[in-house]
């Protein structure tokens, strides 16, 4: 391809509008011809100006207003369907209510934790006696014993020798004694 044909086709080449074979031979010519390469740069610069318009933005509310005018003109007495049927709406509200209840019940449980029903002590006297006697408060982190909810006196260093063996401490319990 020569300079004359290249210069003629540059306006289409710059936008990718030439068939592949022609574009290939034009690119080959431009690569070795500084005057044609300069022309290509100038076309690219002016096209970049056009491409800058792609980044424009419409004023806020443009499309809502557009749609409202068309709607009023064509369907003055028809209300748009919301896109959500009433059973969906009911289910959505029920789900929100359930989540709210779950959070409320959970929160109540957490708040009530220090003073639960007294029945636990009467039902489990042996467990209570054994653990209170050996590891007050430490080894029972995951089991709830109402008697231990009150502030405990400091553990005397000698009591530590009466701790149960490590393998009876609940999994994940403290082990840094």
């Amino acid at each position: 391809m020569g300079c004359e044909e290249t210069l003629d086709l540059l306006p289409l080449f710059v936008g990718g509008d030439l068939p592949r074979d022609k574009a290939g031979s034009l690119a080959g010519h431009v690569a070795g011809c500084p005057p044609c390469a300069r022309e290509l740069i100038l076309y690219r610069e002016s096209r970049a100006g056009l491409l800058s318009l792609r980044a424009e933005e419409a004023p806020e509310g443009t499309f809502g207003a557009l749609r409202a005018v068309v709607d009023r003109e064509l369907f003055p007495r028809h209300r748009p369907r919301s896109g959500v049927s009433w059973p969906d709406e009911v289910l959505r509200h029920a789900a929100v209510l359930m989540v709210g209840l779950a959070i409320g019940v959970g929160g109540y449980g957490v708040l009530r934790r220090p003073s639960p029903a007294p029945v636990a002590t009467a039902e489990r006297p042996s467990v209570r006696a054994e653990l209170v006697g050996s590891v007050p408060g430490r080894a029972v982190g995951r089991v709830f014993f109402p008697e231990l909810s009150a502030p405990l006196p400091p553990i005397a260093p000698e009591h530590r020798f009466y701790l149960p063996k490590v393998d009876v401490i609940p999994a994940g319990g403290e082990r840094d004694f």
Partner: protein
Amino acid sequence: MMRSVAVEGRTVKMPDAGEVALIRKVQLGDPDAFRELMDKYQRRTYWIAFHMLNNYDTAREISQEAFIRVFRNIARFDVKKNFYTWLYQICVNLCIDRMRKVSHGKTVDIDGLGGLADPGRKDPADQEERAETRRRVHQLLDRLPPKYKAVLTLRDINGFSCEEISEIVGCTNATVRWRLHRARRLFRALWEGKGVEVADDADVSDSF
């Protein structure tokens, strides 16, 4: 704020079954189906009008008019054809009619250009420079004859393929390429500040 997005180099998209079903509902007078169709196409319609007319309010009016005409004529629309090229054709024709009524240079919306700032770029000097570039591009585009401006905005700004443009403007692919060739040469000359005679000359598309 809504951003315009262009797609490079696509060919003509054929109507899919979902859209055909939607258009059939519109043909039976279903307002919700028409609203759905509008939601899908109103942004691109608006941007085509804006790039042709460079005025936010006029672009909105033209888009509204295009959709109203579409609804009133949809009974005659052949669902085997592309809805979007038909809609954009109506929009471009309305724009060209408007441009011919208004003399060149009077549609430049200088006051409305404040909304063109790119939020992704925080540097005010950079923003101002970009806004200035866009202002200048609009002014140069306004000096082009409508048929050149139409192909240039449809191809380079809105990213339609030459095949799509030939459906939208209602001429052959060769004519679109001829107009595009001529439009890019003219625009480049204007961009470089060269005084050019911009005449709405006849199409010569044999070589394209």
